[in-house]
Each structure stands twice: as structure tokens, then as C-alpha cells.
């Protein structure tokens, strides 16, 4: 039986799924920064820990644990390889797009599984800044309310796009945005376009 044909993911995803790199096995790992994001109830939870080369402000080591599907496991695994050796500020800017492309792409409905890895990494980097007395460097991801009637933020629009919303109607179904006064419609449509471009436009 030629099972490889029916494998839903690329060979790189399969490789990282079968042989995950940099799993955190040591319960007494001395990390410099730690980030945990997601929620087991949503089906994905990721923990990322880093060691920092303090002289150069680069990531000396990155380990992780993931509760989640094959995409989630492979995404965290490939991300850990991508960021080791990177300056903190560069690692901070790694996004789902770079992760997906390092994996040779993910099925579109699986993109949302790959967004937690880099989120956890950013949390770990912020944690390092806090712990090392550099609170000024912490970059907070502050959500901005776009739809004041239904209290929908730009982050929620981005999440909806990652969960599959492509049209304004789909975005409304998921977030209820712009379903009352309609004043935010133009802005919401622009943000939808921007986020689709950010996460799904080819490089």
C-alpha cells in the first residue's frame, strides 16, 4: 500500500512529527525565559523555554513541549531549530508564515495550529526581558477595539482569519463584527484583507 501518497502533510512536517527536535525532557531545565500559550480545551497548548547568550543577546537554546496535532508538534519543532542562534529581536519577529514555509507549507485549515509556537516564543522572550531587568524591552501585544458595538478587537479579526474566515460574511459569522451600527465596516474589511495577505499570500 502506498501510504505516503495519502499523508496529509509535506515530508518536512512528517519528519518533524516523527523526529521532533529539542523536546524539553528535563523537568529541572534552567531556563532564562519561559512562555506558555494556548489552552488544552481548544486542543493546543505550547510551552517554550529559552536560554539566552547574555553577551550577544542571542538565543542559545530553545526547548518545547506541545499538546496538539501533527501540525502543532511539527511547527514547534521546526521553530525551535529556526530560532537557536538568532538575536532576540529577530526571533521575536518570527511568524506563522516563516514557520509554515520552513515546513514546506501546511494545509490551510492547519495554519491556526502553527500560530501558537511563535506566540509562546514571544512570551518566553518577554519573560527573559522581565527577569533580566529589561522590562522596557517587553513588547506587549495590545489589542485594539475595532467594533465598539460588539467589542471585537483587531486580534480577534486576525484569529478569525487564521481559523478560516476569508469573506466579510464569514468574519461576521465568527466575530459578529459590524452587525449593529456598521460604522466599522470599512476598517474591518481592510483589516480582513490585510490579515489574509499577512498569513496566506504567497511569499
Amino acid at each position, binding site marked *: 500500500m502506498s501510504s505516503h501518497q495519502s499523508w496529509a502533510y509535506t515530508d518536512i512536517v512528517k519528519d518533524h512529527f516523527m523526529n521532533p527536535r529539542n523536546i524539553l525532557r528535563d523537568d529541572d531545565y534552567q531556563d532564562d525565559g519561559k512562555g506558555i500559550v494556548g489552552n*488544552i480545551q481548544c*486542543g493546543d497548548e505550547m510551552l517554550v523555554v529559552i536560554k539566552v547568550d547574555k553577551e550577544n543577546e542571542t538565543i542559545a537554546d530553545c526547548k518545547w*513541549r*506541545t*499538546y*496538539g*496535532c501533527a*501540525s502543532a*508538534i511539527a511547527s514547534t519543532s521546526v521553530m525551535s531549530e529556526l530560532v537557536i542562534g538568532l538575536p532576540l529581536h529577530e526571533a521575536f519577529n518570527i511568524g506563522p508564515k516563516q514557520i509554515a514555509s520552513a515546513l514546506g507549507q501546511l494545509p490551510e485549515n492547519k495554519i*491556526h495550529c502553527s500560530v501558537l509556537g511563535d506566540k509562546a516564543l514571544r512570551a518566553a522572550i518577554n519573560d527573559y526581558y522581565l527577569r533580566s531587568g529589561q522590562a522596557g524591552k517587553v513588547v506587549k501585544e495590545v489589542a485594539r477595539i475595532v467594533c465598539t458595538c460588539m467589542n471585537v478587537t483587531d486580534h480577534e479579526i486576525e484569529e478569525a482569519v487564521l481559523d478560516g474566515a476569508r469573506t466579510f460574511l464569514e468574519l461576521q459569522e465568527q466575530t459578529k463584527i459590524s452587525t449593529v451600527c456598521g460604522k466599522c465596516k470599512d476598517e474591518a474589511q481592510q483589516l480582513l484583507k490585510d490579515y489574509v495577505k499577512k498569513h496566506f499570500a504567497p511569499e
Partner: protein
Amino acid sequence: MTMTQRHVYLDHNSTTPLHPEVIKTMKDGMDYFGNPSSMHAFGRQAKGFVNEARERIATFIGALPEEIIFTGSGSEANNTVLSILGCTATHCSCDREHKPRIVTTTIEHPCILETSKCLTGQGTGIVYIDVDSYGKIDMDALREAVTEETGLVSVMMANNEIGTLQDIRAIARIAHEKGAHFHTDAVQAFGKIPINVHDLGVDFLTVSAHKIYGPKGVGALYVRRGVHFCPMIHGGHQERGRRAGTENTLGIMGMGKAVEMRALEMDEESLRMQTLKQALKTGIEERIPDVWFNGHPTDSLSSTLNVSFDGAEGESILLYLDLEGIAVSTGSACASGSLEPSHVLLATGMPVERAHGSIRMSLGRENTMNDIDYVLDKLPRVIDRIREMSTVYGRK
């Protein structure tokens, strides 16, 4: 993977391989191309094959041949039954004054739940009966929900995900006491447990061929004689005007043969399935900590085992097992690409995180005790491996 890798198929509730006898029948059947509606010899011959299959299916469930309508699938049969209540065809013999209320359950197959949703849009009221932690429906709630306004009660005989069986006879009686018709989706139960439509007192019953080693693309609907029926697919006079479209003669022949073989093998096979399932269950319990078995412990299909593993996500389990040649399915959201895990598992009151970590193993006639041993050898390692990288299992 090597070419010689072992394959163990444990997804028979999804679909089954063709029975060798069905393959023979269908190969031979390819020579007969006649249209059963034609009056000439070619047509009469095809009609003969279709009617032979119809008789076999009817006999198998204690029905009359004219009470069996062939459809393109179990989903079509289920859609057909629900569509009767939504019939708006101006030329239909129905009075279009159907009682505007359907009572069904929270654990039905999507082809009932989604169709119900569509009917809600057309003004039909739908009541969903809850189930307990084993997947058994709340009979008191059912008694309360079925009123003089209820046109149809639809409850599945065996659940596809957890295997739980319902007390169909008692449910049919409750429906009939209030003058409602009763339909059961018997796709998963058909060919696995004995079914007699009179004994159960059902008005409509749905079955499918590909779950019992028959071909895909063919199902059947039992409609009790005298019960009002409106067709969903309009056109020619096939199936006595109840389902238009030239019959899938080859598929129907295959289905007839599949039913004939089930009639011969079912009793013995279901005992054998019970033994295999018990060995699988005991083996998992002995080898893997923190597991939960889902569904009813006794009132359940003897071939379905649904199990949850703490700290392991279902799609990962499925894919690691796939790499070992073992085919299972999962109630995890991630496998389907949606965000919600199985509606059936959630309906039993299971915590969401446990539903994410569940797999279904459904056994079939080609499985042996060697297969079970193989699974019991591989599964503990797969679960260990996933738990080792999990954020939530065995952590401080």
C-alpha cells in the same frame, strides 16, 4: 515505511472492504447493463437482479420487498425521511399539513442534524433530546418532548462514534402513543445486531451497504406499508415512484450479496468481535495508565471501542498509529480541520480536553487476535511518546 509493513484496519464504522463474495457478484454483474425500467429482455434481467436484492434485504429485517426503497446512500435515506415533513411540492399527494415538529437527539449523524437545521429555517420545530454519560437518551425527556404536534421522532439505533445502542422498541412506542411517526438511522446497527422492523415497531429505517462489506454509493430506506411518503428526488417511476433515477444495479446487486453474507455470518462474527474487543480493552487497561472508555459498557456494538487518553491529542495518535500501519479514527477537532471536537463525545458530558484525546477503533470481519496483539504492542509506545512531549501530562 517498508513495503512489507503490516496493516491493521480498525475503522470499519467508517467503511468496510468488500466481502470476497460481493466482489464475485459485482464482477459478474458488470456484464448486465440493462435498465431495470425497460420492458425488453435486457431490462427484465436487470430488474430481476434488483428485485432479488430487494427481497434479501426485506427478509433480513422482516419487511416486505415493496417496503424497501434503494437510495444512493444512508445520508440520502435519512434526508428523504426528514424531507417528508418539509415537503412543499404542489403536485405531491401529501396534504402538506405535516405536523411541524421533529424530535431527535444530540448524538445523531450530521446527515440528520444538518438536515434538521435546514428544516428549522423552513418553520419546522426541532427538539434535541440529551443523552447520559453513556450516550443513552433521556427517556423522560423524550416522553415530555413528544406531543400531539410531533410529526416525526428520529433516533439512531447504534451510535457511529461510541457504539451505544438505544432502546428502539420503547422509543417507537412513545412516538406512536402521540401519533408521531418513528424513524431510526440503523446504518451502524444493520448487519451487526438482529433487526426486525415489526418487532421494533418502526415506520422508517435507514441502512447502508458499505458498512457491511458491500459497495459504496448504495443504501436503502424501509418505509412501512401504509405510512405516508413524499419522494425527495422527483422524476421517473423507479422504486414505485418513490425515488427517481435509474437504479444503481451493480451497487444494488452488491448490497444484496453483502446482506446475504451478513445473514450467514452475523451471529458468529458478533461473538468473535466481542472477544476481540474485550481483549483490546483489557490490553489497553493493563498497558496504558489514565485511559477512559467511552460509550455504554454493555449496550453497545460489539465491534466499536472508543477510548480517551489523558494528555494525548487524537490526531497525533491517529497519525502515529498510521505510521505503524494501524488505521483508526478520532473525535479530535484537529483531524477534521474544525475547532470543535466530536459533538457526540461532548453530548455525553465529556470534558472538552478528553474529547480532543479520543480515538475510535472499530473492528471487522478480517481482524484477528494477531491484529489486536500488534495494536497492543504499538499503541502504548505511541501514547508514551506523545505524553512525553505533552505540556499537560505528568507535569508538576
